[in-house]
């Protein structure tokens, strides 16, 4: 393994600036790693080698020329990044891991992609996900499962399993994810990586294929907290194309991560959410969580217990609001303007029947399940009981958060109740899969930010620790997250990800 790929994004950026390594070398090292292991992992749906190398060469040339051009380069310029294939990109296919968009090329870039291009981060390619981001395991991709680098027979989490696996397996130092109910944080937890769901509106959603508009948020995926801070500062800020984006950019994220890593937690009040521990949480997960609390306490943090009594309704409310928005957001995939078109095999050729045949063939089962649920929940006569009640729960959860943040500066919980489950374990039980998001969903319903940081191993599999902060206070996440990361690594004497086993590419047949 080329040592270059083991560097964090920040470390690699420093070497690029110092001229110790070129961006072309760094990109090529990651492309080599992808060639080596991705046949086994299937983290990438598309590898963008040519363009990535061209951007890398451009950065190298600017840097070689020196002067104002080199000075003006973004700190992450030349550091490669992987993009979840839910985010539209010019020049590369965007599929949302669905047959519906097989071969579709977007004529426009998402706002976050424009920012990444402007900062000259070479894009390595597009990563796998559950179809249209619906799932917690990446088993629901139309293009095959992604495997967890820690155990190839286990899920990498979802929906952003591709981005998490790519970062965990050193195929990329950075990736973009999207988080509607935990799709950045839960994969981060089960792959031993860092993932952040920013405050709703902190990052433009323009160009992220909508799953549930009121919950979706793009965020960073990385191996260190500091790397995520840099990436969120790059992709965040107001976007006139997204009416729900915040008027001002959130600042001080990198500084917060740096101050957290220095270890001073004096006076920080950390609230343990009573409802997100105990029953339903694996023993090993609970043990790592408790150890993390002890470390934080020893470093000067004040640990308090808070109660969020309405969190028990969060999962139910989520599975009404999310499918309702899904049923409307996915209506546009009908074969009329772009993407897949399937003609009915017999009978009259009417537009309704073409749309029906297209949607029947183009969507997978999990997507159909949610469209049907949402269509039902929005129906006249049921709207108040389902969508209306769920929106009220949302308000109650926001109040729970508001009350908890009176007592604590940040809240903490395990990110997911279990370590990565085995591929196929929940095939016949979608509800069991849905339960994996029980700790991450409240943040989406309330619009508050959340981070997952590696908290150790249970059964040789990663456990994630989640911090939550009030809306707009993403900096607090970076401070607490970086502090815990530093405390744990100091205790272990190494990073968690450095303990990941070598990927046995021979054990799994390479997929065509």
């Amino acid at each position, binding site marked *: 393994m080329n040592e270059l790929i083991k560097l964090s994004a920040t470390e690699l950026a420093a070497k690029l600036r110092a001229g110790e390594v070129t961006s072309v070398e760094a990109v090529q090292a990651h492309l080599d790693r992808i060639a080596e292991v991705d046949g086994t992992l299937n983290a990438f749906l598309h590898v963008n080698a040519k363009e990535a190398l061209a951007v890398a060469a451009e950065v190298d040339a600017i840097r070689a020329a020196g002067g104002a051009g080199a000075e003006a380069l973004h700190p992450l310029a030349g550091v490669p990044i992987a993009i979840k294939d839910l*985010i*539209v990109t010019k020049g590369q296919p*965007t599929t*949302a891991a669905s047959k519906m*968009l097989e071969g*579709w090329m*977007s*004529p*426009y870039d*998402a706002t976050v992609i424009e920012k990444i291009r402007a900062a000259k981060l070479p894009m390595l390619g597009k990563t796998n996900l559950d179809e249209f981001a619906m799932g917690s395991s990446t088993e629901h991709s139309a293009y095959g499962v992604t495997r967890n680098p820690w155990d190839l027979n286990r899920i990498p989490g979802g929906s952003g399993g591709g981005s998490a696996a790519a970062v965990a397996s050193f195929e990329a130092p950075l990736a973009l994810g999207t988080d509607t109910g935990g799709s950045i944080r839960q994969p981060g937890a089960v792959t031993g990586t860092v993932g952040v769901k920013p405050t709703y509106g902190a990052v433009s*959603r*323009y*160009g*992220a*294929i*909508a799953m*549930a*508009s*009121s919950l979706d948020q793009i965020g960073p995926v990385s191996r260190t907290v500091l790397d995520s801070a840099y990436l969120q500062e790059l992709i965040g800020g107001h976007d*006139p*194309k*997204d*009416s*729900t984006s915040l008027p001002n950019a959130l600042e001080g994220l990198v500084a917060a991560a740096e101050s957290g890593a220095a270890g001073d937690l004096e006076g920080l009040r950390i609230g343990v959410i009573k409802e997100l521990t105990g029953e339903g949480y694996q023993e090993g997960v609970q043990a790592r969580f408790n150890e993390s609390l002890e470390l934080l306490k020893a470093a000067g943090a004040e640990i308090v217990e808070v109660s969020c009594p309405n969190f028990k309704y969060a999962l139910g409310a989520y599975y009404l609001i999310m499918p*309702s*928005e899904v*049923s*409307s957001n996915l*209506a*546009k*995939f*009908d074969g*009329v*303007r*772009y993407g897949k078109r399937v003609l009915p095999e017999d009978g009259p050729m009417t*537009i*309704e029947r073409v*749309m029906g045949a297209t949607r029947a063939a183009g969507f997978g089962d999990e997507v159909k399940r949610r469209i049907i649920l949402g*269509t039902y929940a*929005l*129906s*006249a006569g049921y*709207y108040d009981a389902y*969508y209306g009640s769920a929106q009220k729960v949302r308000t109650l959860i926001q109040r729970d958060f508001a009350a908890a943040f009176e007592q604590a500066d940040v809240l903490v919980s395990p990110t997911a109740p279990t370590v990565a489950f085995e591929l196929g374990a929940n095939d016949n039980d979608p509800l069991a899969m849905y339960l994996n998001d029980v700790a991450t969903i409240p943040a989406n319903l309330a619009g508050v930010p959340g981070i997952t940081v590696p908290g150790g191993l249970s059964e040789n599999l990663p456990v994630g620790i989640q911090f939550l902060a009030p809306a707009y206070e993403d900096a607090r996440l970076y401070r607490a997250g970086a502090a815990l990361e530093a405390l744990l690594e100091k205790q272990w004497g190494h990073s968690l990800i450095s303990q990941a086993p070598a990927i046995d590419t021979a054990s799994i047949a390479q997929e065509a």
Partner: protein
Amino acid sequence: MSNYTDELVDFDTALDRYDPVLGFEVHVELNTKTKMFSDAPNAFGDEPNTNVTPVDLGLPGVLPVVNKTAVEYSILIGLALNCQIAEKCGFARKNYFYPDTPKNFQTSQYDDPIAHDGWLDIELEDGEVFRVEIERAHMEEDAGKLTHMGGAAGRIQGADYSLVDYNRAGVPLVEIVTKPIVGAGKRAPELARAYVAAIREIVKNLGVSDAKMERGNVRCDANVSLMPKDADKFGTRTETKNVNSLRAVEHAVRFEIERHAAVLDSGAKIVQETRHWHEDTRSTTSGRPKSDADDYRYFPEPDLVPIVTTAEWVEELRSRLPEPPAERRKRLKAEWGYADKEFRDVVNAGVLDEIEATVAAGASAAVARKWWMGEIARLAKAADKEIADLGVTPQTIVELNSLIEGKKINDKIARQVLEFVIAGEGTPSEIVEKRGLAVVNDDDALGKAVDEAMAAMPDVVEKIKGGKMQAIGALMGPVMKATRGQADAGRVREIVMEKLGL
């Protein structure tokens, strides 16, 4: 299913037994520069699918952004219709699958329209005024345009395929919905026409719409129901869609009243449905059944934030409101002193603006009306042009009139001068100068012409001497001929009298 062979009951007979209840949904396309939720141009008549952005095509990942000007125009419409303006309102998604709707939902307003609870006084031709209550005016986006190919007359039935043009998709619309209109009786068709005409006039006057019905800028859905004279509950209604001319609105309402009466008289029930209007047969046919339970699965549009209208903003917009057309007409009629019929003719001829400008430029109201309703209207008709397109300015009229009053030219010559103005030869003064058209009131020249005429017509001279003053007119022809029409008739008359010592 109903069809062209619907039985009808004579209109007057129908209204002897039933009271009609009307309701209108009028869609107004706003003339903003860009669309409701994207920065694509809002323009009519361009190459298909050129005025589109990823947003208008409903591409994966796109988001809408509200056009602030469209919101302002909507508030202006609300204020002009005496509505309350919502302090806070939002958009909702109306979900249905149809290929002219790129997202397969229309972004509209549902239970919180931007304007609500207004009214509009509608004056019929004879001056009777009906107050129409406005339930709401809400914002939404237009759909694309489907063209059905291969079938008869562009209908979807029998078509081989359809083409869709998304240039219109996303064009801002305001839908104005009335409360049920009761009590119009036999004047219902007339009121229907007058109501739509009033809406069209208001939005044109506000400058928020091109208001061309033939282009679909203003489109009317007309709801009609009948209730027996002694009933206290409304009957079942039908909604005749897209009645897109004033005449058609009147005819459609009349037709539906006659058809409903026949159905009810036969003891059958009216089917609640949409109806299609056919201009060729002046009748409606059954569309699709419509029930109040059509399930569009409305829910609040999560991609947009609520619109908050501050009092300052609304008042600033209110201060921009032009004088309402009806009030302006009342004021002008009083200022100009026209008789009812004179004024109505002016309105119907569409020259209110021209007369107002001509009066403002210094002409009297009577002179302005004489020209615009007389010679200019005649020339426009002869040239098959709109009066406004002739190129006659208020200044032309003022100048012509002052030439006449200064006795430089007479009426007949003035009419010739006007034709030369229209032909682009210059201003009236320039034309009179260039063409030597000034009247002759040089007494020597006139005296000579009068002498010649009197010498040639001794019998006429005798009559005049005998006191028949109107006989002077007979001398006028030869005098005019001798002066090539440029004689001042008044002066000729005076000279004749002087010469005869009268």
